[in-house]
Every structure is written in C-alpha cells, then in structure tokens.
C-alpha cells in the first residue's frame, strides 16, 4: 500500500488549486458559492483567494483547498501501449530478423480533422524532435495520406496496398467528434472483414491507450510518442500474431 495525496508545502497536506467561472457576482454570496462548490466536492478548508467580476453576472474564482482522501498508488495499474523504448536501428534489426518482406503502414488524419503535424511527426522522413519518421525505416513501407481523409478512402487505400498497420491521427476532440469518427472506422473495417487483418492504432494529443482500446483499437498513443514507439508496438504485435496457432 502506498498512500498518496497532493503535496502543497507539507507532505500529505492534500493541497490543490482550482479556478472556475460561476454565473454569479464576485460579492459575498458569489464567494460563498465558490466556497460551497469546493466543500461539496469534499474539499477541506477551501480558501477563495481571488474573486473577480468578468462580466455582468459572471465571476472568476481562484480557490485553494485540501483533498481529504488518499489514493493507493499500488492499486493504480495502467496498461500502456508503450512498455519499452528501442532505437530505430534496433527496430530495423528486429524487422530484418522476423520478416522477409516490408511491412506496410498506412496513416492519415481522418474524418474532418485537418491537423497533420502529429501524423507527420510519426511518419515523415524528417521526423520530429530528433526522431526520424517511419518513412525512413528499412523494412517498413509507409504511406501518409495527409489530412481530412474519409474513412472510406482510408480503407480503400489500405486494401489496395495490403496494409499491415493502420495509423489514425485525431486532434480535434471537441464535442467528441473524434469518437464518432474513430468508431465509424472500426465499424467500416468490420463490415469489410478487415479488422482482424490489420493492427489498428490511434494517436493524438488527447488520445490515450485506454480510450483507443475502448473504441476497438489495438493501441493509442498520446503526446510525446515517437515513430519508434509505434513501430515497436506494431511489430511486437505482428510477431505475437504470427506465433499464434
């Protein structure tokens, strides 16, 4: 058991900072409302340290307060797509040792999403933050279809090139637009009986492994993931799949 709490200036003091806007005035009643909000969240000793009218009827608050429960860190287990890190060179060796053909990766920023920097970071030759992209990997054939690619077009292309791995990038998450789009892809793949034949990976600033799994993907990658990570994950999965009966 490893019990933890937020740390302000004393171990275990539970101190956290909050800020929010309420449809109130920054007067006594408003400040009290801000305080009750914190109390109702179960926070101890809330201090409304700032209250300011933003605009008639809306006020901005800053509050400090203490969390009064512990979390048991030992009870928190997360499944992560990323379990180890290897270099491109190491991955190329694994590829050479395990496959006698090039693996085909197809990636895109799908749906109405126009953000390409993320998928480019993973795929483009020049890579990102000192990590070369998949296009540079010996043993991998990488197709980057760019952005705003319709799920239908994505699948059509994947079929055409016999893709092993599909890489989906999603950046816009407002009103859960990414969820609808990501689910649609899975449904289309299933309809095409392709789901089992590919490794399906999602990525983006607000994508977590957990979410991706939930939506029927094999893995999800968030911020600070690089080509090496995706490549390694996909390859390990393919090797595992090969050895399946």
């Amino acid at each position, binding site marked *: 058991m490893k019990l933890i709490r937020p740390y302000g200036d004393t171990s275990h003091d539970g101190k956290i900072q909050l800020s929010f*806007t309420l449809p109130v005035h920054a007067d006594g009643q408003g400040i009290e409302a801000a305080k009750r909000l914190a109390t109702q969240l179960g926070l101890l000793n809330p201090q409304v340290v700032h209250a300011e009218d933003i*605009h008639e009827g*809306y006020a*901005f608050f800053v509050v400090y307060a203490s969390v009064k429960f512990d979390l048991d860190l030992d009870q928190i287990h997360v499944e992560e797509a990323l379990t180890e890190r290897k270099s491109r060179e190491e991955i190329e060796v694994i590829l050479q040792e395990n496959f006698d053909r090039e693996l085909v990766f197809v990636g895109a920023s799908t749906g109405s999403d126009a953000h390409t*920097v993320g998928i480019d970071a993973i795929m483009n030759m020049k890579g990102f933050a000192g990590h070369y992209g998949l296009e540079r990997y010996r043993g991998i054939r990488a197709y980057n279809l760019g952005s705003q690619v319709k799920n239908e077009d994505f699948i059509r292309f994947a079929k055409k090139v016999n893709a092993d791995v599909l890489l989906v990038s999603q950046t816009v998450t407002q009103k859960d*637009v990414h969820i609808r789009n990501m689910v649609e892809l899975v449904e289309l793949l299933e309809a095409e009986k392709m789901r089992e034949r590919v490794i399906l990976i999602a990525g983006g*600033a607000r994508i977590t492994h957990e979410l991706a799994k939930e939506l029927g993907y094999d893995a999800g990658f968030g911020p600070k993931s690089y080509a090496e990570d995706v490549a390694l994950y996909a390859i390990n999965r393919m090797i595992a799949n090969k050895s399946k009966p």
Partner: protein
Amino acid sequence: MNQFHLDPSIIETCRQDAFLIADEVLSMVEQHSTVSVERSVLRLIGVDGVNDLLEPLPNMMVDEVYHHGDLSKGISRYLASALFQSGLNLTEFQQAYLKGQVQLITPHLEDLDTCRNVLKPYLQKTFDRIAKNRDTRHRFLEKETPRTTDLYVIVATGNIHEDVIQAKAAAKAGADIIAVIRSTGQSLLDYVPYGITTEGFGGTYATQANFQIMRKALDEVSKEEGRYIKLVNYASGLCMPEIAAMAAIERLDVLLNDSMYGIIFRDINMKRTFIDQHFSRMINAKAGIIINTGEDNYLTTSDAIEEAHTVLASQFINEQFAFAAGLPEELMGLGHAFEIDPSVENSFLYELAQAQMAREIFPNAPLKYMPPTKHVTGNIFRAYQQNTLFNIVTQYTSQSIHLLGMMTEAIHTPFLQDRYLAIQNAKMIQTSMKSISEELVIKEDGLMANRAKKVLEDASLLLKQVKESTLFQALEQGVFAGVKRPQDGGKGLDGVFQKSPDYWNAALDLWEVSR
C-alpha cells in the same frame, strides 16, 4: 518607427516580382468563374433561403444551370431572364422556385439590357445596404480615438447564443474584435449553411442568421462601451466569395481571406481558390472589410525560424492580389505569427525582429499578428507567459490586429475565463509598456537587424524563383508550409468553368458602372 533601414530597392523588387506572379495568375482568373462566384452574385441580388433538404437557393439555382444550362454565360443572365419572363418580383420568384413552379432555364435568354434592367434594382438595394453599412461603421469609428492595436479574441462554442454571451463578456473586458470561429469542416462544404445554429465542432457555423445575431449583440455592446466592436468571420474555403457577400450585407468588419490558404491547408483546387479569392476581395473592397491573410498558418506546420521568409514572400503575393481586387493598403491585414520555439536562444529577439520587419515593410497595412500556438503545451501557466511575450512584441511593433493567445491553446477552445485573463494580460502590457518602442532602440547591425535583413533577402530570392516559374508550379513544389498540391487536384475543381465570350456578371457590371 523605421529602425532597420532595410534596403528599399530589395523591397521594391519583391513588390515587382509579386506583381508579376499575381498578374500571371490573374490572367487565368479573368477567363474563369466558379459556382461559388455565381452563387455570390445571386446572394448580392438578394437570393436567399433553403428548400426542405436545407439546400440553399443559390446552390439550387447554380446547380440547375450547371447541369442543364450553360453556366459559362454566368448565372445573372439566367436569373434575369427567368425573372423577367415570370413577371414575378424576386421574393415571389424564389417562393415559386422552391415550389418548383418556375425554373431558371427558360426557352430563351433575354438580351443584356433587359437583364441589366431587371436585376439592377435588386442589386442596387444590396449595394446601398453595403454602402450604408460602411457608413454606419464609419460613424461609429469616427467618434473614437483610433487605437494602434485592436485586441482580437475568438468565440467558438458551436452555439451562437453561447457565443453571444462570451463575445459580450470579452468586449466588456476590453476586446476590440470578436471572431466567431467556424465549425470544423465548414470550409469544405460547397454551400453555406442556413439559419440560426446551435451545434458545431470546434466552432459555430457561419450563416447569415448567425452573422446577424452577433452583429446585433456587438452593436449593443459597442454603444454601451462607446467603442466599436468589430466582427470577424472566414471568407475562406469553398464558399469564399459567398461569405464575403453575406459579410458585406451584415456589416462584418474583418474577414479571414487569403489567396492561397485554401489550396495549402484545405486541399482546395488552386484555380478555384484563385478565382474565388479575387471575387471575394472585390466584394470586401466595396464593403470596406479588412481582410486577414493566413501566413501565420505556415509556421504552425513549418519551423518559424527556417521558414520566416516564406511568410514574407507570401505577404507580398497576398498584397498584390489584394491591390488587383481594389483593396487599399488600409484594408490589408497581412498575417504573421509568433511561433518560434521559446526554448531557442534569443527566440524573443527573433520574434521581435520579424514583427518589426513586417511593420516596416507594410507600414500602412493593419497587420494581423497571431499568438504562439504550436509550442504551447498543456502547462497553462507557461502558456500565459508565452502570451505575455507575444503581447510585448505587439506593443513594441504596433501590430494592428492582435489575436490574443489563450493559456488553454493546447487544450480546448477558450473558456470564458481564459479569454478574460488573456485580455487582462494584453492590457497590462499595453499600460505598463506604453512607450517602450520609443524608449528602447534596436541596435544597428545587431542580431535583430541582421535577422530582418536576412529574412527579406531570402524572401526576395524566393519570389524571384517563383516568378521565374509560376505560382502554380511553386504550389506544386510545396514552397509554402511544405505542402505540395497538384494543379488539377484538390476539391472544387469541378466548380470552375471558363467564361464564354458573352459571360455576364450583373454585380461586376453594376460596379463597373458606378465606379
């Protein structure tokens, strides 16, 4: 204001090269029109409304002629003829059209004089309204002492009514310009949605009804605050000129409107974009609407240090396209951005040099300056600081349209408090550094001076290179933002057509006359 003493002959050469680059494109433009240009003409005439499938009337009409008539003659001739022959007024005609009782394609087209006479009163009414809008804006503005810098914030809830709450709050807190960000994907719709909307993704649909609601709200605040609050939307994407027409009618003040953004960032066909931008800018010129170009976007994709010169080159090109459409410098909100990685040594000085350079090269343009976005992370405190640095650069270099950075840039579209705090941030800089540009002088021949010189030289080289081929080729080669676009690829090419010798555009026609 002039601190860098940049070589005027290089600047002049850039302008000349950009002129030639634009001119070549414009000779193609002259011979073509697009479905969206034609729809805009309909809108200027006063065609508006949707059928049961929510298909807008301008689309229905242009589609009819596109598929069953000869659109190369221009939509004006068809509408005028049908209207004339029906004997109805425009309102009645539209109702009948929706019911399928009348069509645009009639046995014969009337002669030009008849057509002119039929449409003129309708067009004139719109043009009068646009003139009145200019006037109203002018009357608001002449009462105020002009501001060096307008603070610009976005609202983007998806729901126009929430947008209004937030826009008002922002204006009251000190924002001078409110932009209603469009819903993701609207730029690729080949029609303009209709009516009041309350659902959108990462933005609110640009519709004429929404424009109206927001304009009204902002006029109210303008009166309360004694400060005219400008309204912004996007004349960009497949409906570029239509939105310009709607904006002119509803008194928007600023439009995002770039000559190449759609090509590069939305994969819209280049011919389509060039034709559309030209007509949209003509409307903007008439309406006194400031355009905002989109060079800032290059730096969200490419590196801001390495690709700074592409921004400048593009500004020169945008400037020439704007001149060609009749826009004066005072309406050219050329875009650029504060996007250098803050962990780069002296990044602030490079940003300052870049912004000062733009200010000196385009002294009369209401430059639009975009905040840090690319190097903003989920650390909202760090983001707040980045925005302070950005605000300082604007204060020093007198940027005109200053889009406020949000501390939650990397997270979500702005919350009420994000916007409020962003305005406070900018205000503190405006006050506490009021005279900074007079008090601190840029060193001659230093790091900043040399940087500005270098960027100008590189831009000049790039323009020369583009001039020696064509802009079409340059776009094929991915000169801007590293994005390559085939000349005949992209969306919307099927909406482009060559004008026949007897092509007639009623709006242009009337403008020519009244010029």
